[in-house]
């Protein structure tokens, strides 16, 4: 069992506040991913949990015990660093057994645990090597192995894959997901890569400017972003945003007029909106179709062909960018004038403060 409770956590360096009051609950066996742009405080939050930074305010509780002031050595957490942080003067075996040796565990027991971790990570043939004789991916595995042997309450990962090349990153991502299944452990993972967040997490925590923007399952966040930031951060290619004005509102529908002219009627509970105020319409690439009968006139920009899919980048007459996902064999010529059909039931509407306007149906139910 490992549960983590964070209450009103704050961290400032000199006068600058990095973490501005974070509340978060992490349950046993969850794979929690902290994601956000650089400088959002995600690494600092992880380091506060690890005890590598002193908190300025608030509390951290691990399994009901207040660990806010406990030294990192006594928190029973293991961390995998972006730079791997292996001990360069020790062999792989020594690297992995270091924590157990310090804890005074019997040699035979240590050996058993190291061999078991080496088996899981397929490191058996590298145990007598020094870190400098290993490739990046192997080093990362050793760093993970060092965490596994300790059987910690929580695994902490600080951007563990960002120093690996693209192919290896995908492979290690799968291995980490498998590892989480196999170990049934609680894991906290920091990344700026939203693909890692979407694919690994059972719970995603989106951070921005030292605050939590939204917490939820990956698909929940993808389909129901709470605000413009989350909507724009998750998903590749990014969600397209179009400026619009509120024309008419009711509990069942909201009618808006886009800056480029067309009017749309969305199944949204518009009662919180004010007629005439500005709103933002968000549309993901998969919810647009090229349709001669469509409501939205656009001019095509560049086209990215990925094989399975093609992404056509377009601009509206008011010069707002939109991306459309079309089948892989489709091609849009540059500068073509087209019309797009909008799947209004899957559109997102954000009020003037950037907060999502809820679904009409959800409200009714």
């Amino acid at each position, binding site marked *: 069992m490992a549960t983590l409770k964070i209450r009103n956590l704050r961290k400032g360096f000199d006068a600058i506040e990095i973490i501005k009051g974070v509340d978060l609950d992490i349950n046993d066996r969850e794979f929690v991913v902290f994601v956000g742009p650089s400088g959002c405080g995600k690494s600092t939050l992880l380091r506060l949990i*690890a*005890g*590598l930074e002193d908190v300025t305010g608030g509390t951290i509780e691990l399994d009901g015990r207040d660990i806010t002031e406990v*030294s*990192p*050595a*006594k*928190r029973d*957490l*293991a*961390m995998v*660093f*972006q*730079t*791997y*942080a*292996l*001990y*360069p*003067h020790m062999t792989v075996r020594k690297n992995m057994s*270091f*924590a157990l040796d*310090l*804890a005074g565990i019997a040699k035979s027991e240590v050996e058993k645990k190291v061999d078991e971790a080496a088996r899981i990570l397929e490191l058996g043939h590298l145990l007598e090597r020094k870190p400098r004789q290993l490739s990046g991916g192997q080093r990362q595995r050793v760093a993970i192995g*060092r965490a596994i042997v*300790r059987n910690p309450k929580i695994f902490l990962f600080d951007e563990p894959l960002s120093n690996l090349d693209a192919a290896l990153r995908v492979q290690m991502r799968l291995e980490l997901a498998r590892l989480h299944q196999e170990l049934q452990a609680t894991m906290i993972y920091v990344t700026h890569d939203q693909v890692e967040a979407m694919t690994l997490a059972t719970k995603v925590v989106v951070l921005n400017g030292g605050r939590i923007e939204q917490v939820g399952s990956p698909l929940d966040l993808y389909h129901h972003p709470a605000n413009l930031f989350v909507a724009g951060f998750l998903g590749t290619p990014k969600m397209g945003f179009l400026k619009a004005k509120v024309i008419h509102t009711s509990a069942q529908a909201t009618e808006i007029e886009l800056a480029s002219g067309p009017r749309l009627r969305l199944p949204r509970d518009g009662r919180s909106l004010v007629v005439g105020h500005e709103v933002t319409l968000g549309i993901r690439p998969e919810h647009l179709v090229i349709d001669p009968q469509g409501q939205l006139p656009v001019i095509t920009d560049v086209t990215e062909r990925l094989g399975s899919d093609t992404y056509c980048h377009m601009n509206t007459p008011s010069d707002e960018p939109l991306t459309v996902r079309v089948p892989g064999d489709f091609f849009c010529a540059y500068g073509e004038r087209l019309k797009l059909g909008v799947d209004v039931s899957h559109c997102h509407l954000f009020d003037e403060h950037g907060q999502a306007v809820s679904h009409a149906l959800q409200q009714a139910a």
Partner: protein
Amino acid sequence: MLTLKQSRRLQSVVLGALAWTVALILFFPIFWMILTSFKTEIDAFATPPQLIFHPTLENYLHIQERSDYFHFAWNSVAIAFGSTIIGMLLAVPAAYSMAFHETRLTKQTLLWMLSTKMLPAVGVLMPIYLMTKSLGLLDTKLSLIIIYTLINLPIMVWMVYTYFKDIPKDILEAARLDGATTVQEIVRVLLPISKGGLASTVLLSLILCWNEAFWSLNLTSSSAAPLTALIASYSSPEGLFWAKLSAVSTLACAPILIFGWISQKQLVRGLSFGAVK
């Protein structure tokens, strides 16, 4: 016109010649000293200087008759190692805290420490002499050990600090999360990683202590006098005896020269450690 390849080769020849010239100029006094130590006093004084002569060991025999070389050598060894060990015991924790737990005052502290090296030693001769005297430490090895430690400490802290600065903080943080106490973190992770840099700091401190003459001449007379004092005793008022002076200088330099030569690989690696990375 030279081709690129030719001009590169020319460049390396010129640089090589330059390096050899500098090295020979630096080595010449030592070479001449060793040569002179095997001459008779008359040969040593001859003009023009003689390159070909009958070598003799009489200077060395004379020195061994007049003074107990090993007494002075032991003092040098004890003082140099004593001071270096104490210096390292102080410099490592100081550099650790400055390199890995930096505060706003760290940079100023380092500069202030170094600034003490800018003071001419003779400026504090009187107070230090009087303090040493009232503590009853005149002509003791302890007084020189303490003073050398204090003199060299700024350089040692700076050097160790520079090596520590090159070590990624993550490695120590990993050790901390692995359950290491601060002492275990330093002894089991930090020191083994930085042993090249520490070795060159030790070597530099040994050399500085070995060669120090100002304080050893002023604070010792016989029982604690190191080799530098022995050399000075041969430049006596009854006239200079070049051959004997050279012989005693050779004897004084030899141990540290040999020691330095054996460990030069380590020293060069240590000194360029920060630059390469």
